């Protein structure tokens, strides 16, 4: 896997800090600046956003993990929780697990921390964030908290200053808030509880600060997407908001559609016109799009649908992550409708996997569904610059006036040249009705069989190469997982490896078509498997069982959202399972 190699995840954990407060307290800004400062100081890290149900102004928390090496997911516990106020911050107790060594830092004026946070045995430290900010005219309490959290993590003061200067505009505000940061740094002296980060190692590669939604958008553009139509939906909207101006710069276009029925049909129309096209949505939108995806299958029109999964069914839990759309993505189309389903394995991999999805869709003239999720999409990470994949993504088109042109000609590969409007001598009508090779609607037994075979063959027989999965490590026990669940699983396996416990890890990137022969090869010598996923009904396990010969000894670890899977619980589960 020369290009799409996952970032190496170390068994050891870095520093984990949560910043929390009610709406308007500026915690998200402080969190973003903390990550920017860490990046500036040469560290890696990520920030996960979480918020209450209010549209604006509700409580929010920025969950950070910073390390000297690339990091893809959150740790088991937070070393520190820094709260600007307690408002409704107790709501996040499940999302911000603490340990006895942790420190809980709260606003002095608000008294004790809520019991739910103290129960862990964490030490409470009161800090007068508001008073401090008030004493420095023009400064803000969240900047004091930034200085405090930065100092706990062991980040250099200059990096915190640089990060703040990058966002503050007016000279007076800059001076006041740098002083606020310094006050925060001073207040953190001697607090302890957090092991400060070791100095970052030397760096040769360029690094990016990017969210998974931006990464998927950028990967799509790298893949050649120049037209997007979409309807806003959490948590996919930021991907569209990033793509709108980006497409405008490079000569593309984004249309805000009236609904998802329109978005999917708009991209089918645009792609029929020869322009690689994409839409992004979440579960409710994907459900509305399934008829249109079927049209893309039947008319053999390349499209890419990015599903940034959230808690379901129905409106579900819109701003929280869950891998509950695997079943609809793989099985949700009507009729026999072979198509592609892919899943990025990390925030950085959203770039490569989405680029690959575009390439496959174009090459195979079929729809590709990319299963991202809220965790990947809305989290922001410092990553090594993802290399551009050298992929052959060219759609096969006929020459002008190609003799005896038949749009849906039965070819050995199943892929037939797709004429683009404007090309002379190859006029045809793309059709969702079953058709003859020439594209004439047909209910004929032979035509139906031929076209079903053709559409199945092109997907099944394509050479997907090595990229179908990351297969790592050795052992007679294997963990099989996909998407964001793989992040905690990979860290769990690395932790076990550090203890000398060998477990093989298989992270599928190409979910459909399932590469059964390659999977069988990867499972060679494996006598039992544990299938790990984040949903209530073990959709991935059931999918694998329906198509692949898994070893008889198999177990499923599945849990719905919104809580993320933690590496520690997975390591324990895997160790117990392995010893059973």
């Amino acid at each position, binding site marked *: 896997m020369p290009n799409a190699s996952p970032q190496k995840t170390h068994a050891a954990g870095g520093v984990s800090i949560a910043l929390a407060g009610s709406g308007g307290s500026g915690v998200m800004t402080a969190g973003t600046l903390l990550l920017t400062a860490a990046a500036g100081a040469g560290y890696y890290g990520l920030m996960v956003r979480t918020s209450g149900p209010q549209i604006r102004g509700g409580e929010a928390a920025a969950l950070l993990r910073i390390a000297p090496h690339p990091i893809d997911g959150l740790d088991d516990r937070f070393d520190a929780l820094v709260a600007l106020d307690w408002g409704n911050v107790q709501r996040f107790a499940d999302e911000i697990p603490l340990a006895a060594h942790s420190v809980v830092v709260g606003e002095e004026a608000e008294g004790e921390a809520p019991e739910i946070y103290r129960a862990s045995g964490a030490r409470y430290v009161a800090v007068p964030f508001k008073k401090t900010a008030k004493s420095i005219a023009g400064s803000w309490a969240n900047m004091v908290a930034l200085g405090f959290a930065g100092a706990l993590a062991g980040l250099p003061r200059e990096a915190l200053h640089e990060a703040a200067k990058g966002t503050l505009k007016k000279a007076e505000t800059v001076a006041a808030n740098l002083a606020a940061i310094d006050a925060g740094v001073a207040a953190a002296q001697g607090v302890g509880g957090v092991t400060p980060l070791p100095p970052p190692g030397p760096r040769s590669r360029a690094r990016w600060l990017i969210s998974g939604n931006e990464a998927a958008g950028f990967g799509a553009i*790298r893949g050649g997407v120049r037209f997007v139509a979409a309807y806003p939906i959490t948590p996919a909207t930021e991907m569209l908001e990033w793509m709108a101006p980006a497409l405008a710069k490079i000569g593309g276009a984004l*249309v805000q559609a009236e609904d998802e029925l329109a978005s999917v049909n708009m991209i*089918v129309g645009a792609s029929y016109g020869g322009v690689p096209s994409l839409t992004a949505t979440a579960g409710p939108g994907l459900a509305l799009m399934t008829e*249109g995806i079927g049209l893309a299958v039947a008319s053999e029109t390349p499209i890419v649908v990015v599903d940034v999964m959230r808690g379901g069914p129905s409106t579900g839990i819109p701003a929280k992550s869950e891998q509950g759309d695997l079943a609809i993505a793989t099985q949700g189309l009507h009729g026999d409708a072979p198509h592609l389903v892919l899943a990025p394995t990390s925030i950085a991999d959203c770039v490569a996997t989405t680029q690959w999805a575009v390439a496959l869709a174009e090459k195979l003239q079929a729809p590709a569904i990319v299963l991202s999720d809220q965790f990947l999409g809305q989290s922001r990470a410092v990553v090594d610059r993802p290399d551009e994949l050298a992929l052959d993504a060219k759609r096969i088109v006929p020459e002008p006036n190609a003799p005896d042109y038949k749009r849906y000609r039965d070819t050995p590969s199943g892929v037939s040249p797709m004429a683009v409007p*404007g090309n002379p001598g*190859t006029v045809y009508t793309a059709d969702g009705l079953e058709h003859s090779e020439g594209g004439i*609607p047909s209910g004929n037994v032979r035509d139906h069989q031929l076209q079903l075979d053709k559409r199945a063959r092109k997907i099944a027989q394509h050479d997907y190469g090595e990229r179908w999965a990351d297969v790592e490590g050795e052992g007679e026990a294997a963990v099989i997982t996909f998407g964001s669940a793989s992040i905690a699983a990979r860290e769990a396996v690395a932790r076990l490896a550090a203890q000398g416990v060998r477990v093989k890890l298989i992270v599928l990137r190409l979910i459909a078509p399932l590469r059964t022969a390659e999977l069988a090869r990867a499972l060679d010598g494996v006598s039992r498997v544990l299938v790990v996923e984040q949903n209530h009904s073990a959709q991935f396990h059931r999918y694998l069982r329906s198509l692949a010969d898994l070893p008889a000894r198999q177990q499923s670890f599945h849990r719905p959202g919104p809580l993320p899977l933690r590496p520690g619980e997975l390591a324990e589960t895997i160790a117990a399972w392995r010893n059973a």
Partner: protein
Amino acid sequence: MDLAEAPARAPRTAAAYKSSYKPIWCPGCGDFSVLSAITKALAKLDLTPENVAVVSGIGCSSRIPAYTSCYGFHGVHGRALAAATGLKVARPDLTVLVTGGDGDGYSIGGNHFLHACRRNVDLTYVVMDNHVYGMTKGQPSPTTEPDWDSKLSPGGTGVRAFHPLVIALASGANFVARAFSGDPNGTAEVIAQAIVHPGFSFVEVLSPCVTFRPEQRDWKDAVHPAPVEATDDPARAARRIMTDDGFNLGVLYKGNRAPYKGYPAPARAGVADLEKEFEL
């Protein structure tokens, strides 16, 4: 559109825009004449067939694309305007026609109709309105009279019919016309004007379903040319459309709304430039 193309050849005839594929329609169906009117309109403008795309949904009337010698897209029921919008925005160089029925356009595709009018992308939308679902064998559509008896709605739906021209006008269509399939030349003239007019052009063609609404054969006696020229004043057009007898034929409104702004502009940057915002 290649209106400026100077042909060193004889202009194309309507026959040049017909495919060899035989329509599946019932003998006497109004849609035959609409197909003929479309080909005549294209011939009138002498457009290059491969630079024209005809997009449709599902229904008897939606079969038109394959009967032309243009590029065609026969998508799913109700979504023709969406597919055509994507195509035209991605490929503004093409002339894009959308064809379909009243069920396709006003019922299942109703939302897209409103938004296509508002968006004002340069499309020409030809609806063959027969006040019935022909393809599914005779159910009421949004333009069906409330007392029209059918198996699915015995004794009639009791639901008020929808006025597509008023809706189009109110939603922002830039060109609104009514035509009748029994007058293919008049219909061709209206469609040609609709194609030339910038923005979203809507042509409602009364096109009898002789099988499920045989009484519509009488439309030929009811239709009459509009007594006055098209107006560019939407309020006047609305008043005329709301008060006419429903058989007033011709271009009723020709607006001058600003065109859709979201077409692709020339590239100002390359893909590599987009990386800069992520770089540390």
